[in-house]
């Protein structure tokens, strides 16, 4: 009987019920869509951040990541690379020689961050050749190819095949010079990268700065079933026995700005949703209080007839549960529809006019957000919205339960 009365009471003020239900449905649906977009955006950012960092876990000579000093090199490169490669949970180990130096032509000179890479291995993390706009990516027959960023090429007034001189310090601190030939031009869309980035083969880089048998960095990609932290811990143990003086960083430690951004973005997102939810809940509480005031005499009548106060409170809560159930069903449909639409068509960050934003060297404007369902987060959001909405009727229900029947029956007499 309580549920029957509650259900019919809902439709006594159809417009009010529809407005209240729509508010809950909208906030719930938007929360789900927001979570989906957020999660997918963060997932992509993490992938990009991992790529930008060079792997899930990075191994360097101790202090390299902070100082980028040329003498901080992994002197037993093959040994360390093999140790990383053979570590359980490592999907891929990528060796790199990283050189900070100066590239010069007869026209100009400019700073360069040159990465000596194995193109095939790099392509399995993120393929730099995807950004190629001219020439080829280290694929020619030359032993001294160099691929430079588009802005750097423009500054140095270079054409494909032109000679470029690299000046850098070797691990002993001595200046070295090496000749390269421009084989390709990359354009990432990120000003900093396009002004400073360069690639060459790992062999050519070693030869240029006298690093035979040495590496600057080994990037490790974790197998799906292995957590990054567990992999880093395993590598620390494994490397600690073979090579003292190495540092093992997770990508989180390597690019803390990105982690901070994601955490801040998450916190702001939750705060925004929380504020929306609180506003909606206050309106629901207010509406239910109005509903109690409008029905004081009727609730008093029910009490006079023998319905206990707590059951009158239950009646109000039953109305809320029904309203919440309906609203959440509609909200879920809205959220699911929104998720499917966003996942199908995507939302481009560039369309929001954020072309200039970079985080940890990652060009945010390149991102197109899609949506990913995280069942645990959706369940948590559903529980929060459901519980909070029903909780918003607790005070009105308590008020209704405490009504004195004699006073209530005098109401509106």
């Amino acid at each position, binding site marked *: 009987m309580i549920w*029957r009365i509650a259900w019919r009471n809902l439709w006594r003020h159809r417009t009010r019920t529809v407005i209240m239900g729509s508010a809950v449905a909208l906030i719930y649906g938007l929360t789900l869509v927001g979570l989906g977009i957020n999660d997918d955006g963060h997932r992509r950012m993490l992938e990009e951040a991992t790529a930008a960092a060079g792997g899930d876990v990075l191994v360097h000579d101790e202090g390299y990541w902070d100082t980028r000093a040329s003498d901080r090199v992994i002197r037993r490169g093959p040994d360390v690379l093999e140790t990383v490669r053979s570590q359980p949970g490592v999907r891929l180990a990528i060796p790199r020689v990283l050189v900070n130096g100066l590239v010069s032509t007869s026209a100009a000179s400019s700073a360069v961050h040159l990465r000596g890479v194995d193109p095939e291995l790099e392509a399995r993390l993120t393929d730099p050749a995807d950004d190629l706009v001219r020439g080829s990516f280290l694929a020619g027959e030359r032993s001294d190819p160099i691929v430079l960023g588009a802005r750097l090429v423009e500054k140095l007034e270079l054409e494909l095949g032109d000679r470029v001189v690299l000046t850098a310090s070797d691990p002993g601190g001595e200046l070295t010079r090496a000749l390269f030939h421009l084989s390709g031009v990359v354009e990432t869309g990120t000003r900093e990268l396009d002004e400073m980035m360069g690639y060459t083969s790992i062999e050519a880089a070693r030869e240029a700065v006298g690093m035979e048998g040495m590496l600057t960095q080994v990037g490790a990609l974790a197998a799906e079933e292995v957590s990054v932290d567990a992999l880093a811990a395993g590598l620390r143990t494994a490397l600690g026995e073979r090579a003292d003086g190495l540092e093992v960083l997770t990508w989180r430690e390597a690019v803390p700005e990105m982690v901070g951004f994601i955490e801040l973005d998450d916190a702001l997102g939750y705060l925004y949703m929380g504020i929306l939810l609180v506003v909606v809940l206050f309106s629901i509480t207010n509406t239910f209080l109005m509903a109690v005031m409008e029905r004081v005499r009727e609730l008093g*009548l*029910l009490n*006079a*007839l*023998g*319905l206990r106060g*707590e059951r009158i409170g239950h009646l109000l809560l039953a109305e809320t549960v029904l309203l919440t159930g309906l609203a959440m069903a509609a909200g879920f449909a809205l959220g699911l529809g929104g998720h499917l639409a966003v996942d199908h068509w995507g939302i481009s960050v560039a369309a929001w006019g954020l072309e200039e934003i970079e985080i940890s060297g990652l060009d945010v404007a390149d991102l197109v957000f899609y949506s990913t369902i995280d069942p645990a987060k959706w369940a948590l959001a559903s529980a929060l919205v459901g519980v909070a909405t029903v909780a918003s009727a607790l005070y009105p229900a308590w008020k209704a339960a405490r009504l004195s029947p*004699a006073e209530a*029956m005098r109401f509106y007499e």
Partner: protein
Amino acid sequence: MSDEAATAPVVGPEGATWSEDALIRVRGVSKVYRQGELEVPALRGVDLDLAEGEFTAMAGPSGSGKTTLLNMIGALDSPTEGAVSVAGHDVGTLDRGEAADFRLDHVGFIFQAYNLVPVLTAYENAEFTLLLRGTPKEERRERVEGLLERVGLADMMDRRPPELSGGQQQRVAIVRALATHPDIVLADEPTANLDSGTSGELLDLMQELNRKLETTFLFSTHDETVIRRARRVIRLLDGRVDRVETRDEA
């Protein structure tokens, strides 16, 4: 009180005699309402007995305490002083939950207006108290349909209150009040919003039910039609029993 009715005071407010088998006993009941700093006395030391099967009216001007006394007897309110006993229960000492249970088990109410739950049909309103008491479905149907038929609403069971006239709504309320076979039916101005023809019909009905089912009725009323039909009339004035009149069968 009509002249032709045979009236004679049996007991007065002072020196009252109390029957041992009274269904309702009111002893020295006072009620004071507080409005901020202001104390408004509604009842001032009322003593009253009511036997089972009576058809009694409480009459008096507005503010004389009729509804307040009815509320005390129906456990809708508790006295500031004194005691009210109904069917052996000291109703003034019941907590909220116990009072609700007491009303459900012992009292049937008929109010002046807004008497029915608007979202329930006539049948559902009439069976409401039976449902609360957990009466089995078949028994509920038997009692409610029988009573609705008796009050002439057999073909209106599925109508909701807005689809019923004032008189029809009061008939449903009477059925609801009687369906649980209460010890007493308390009716607060039951005819106030009805025309004289409908009032008369309802009073006929209640008198018939009083005779046949021996249900005790206590009215609070201004309505002379009701007062004329009552076998006992308790006149209240300024929160006190002014006089009690009894008469032969009306």
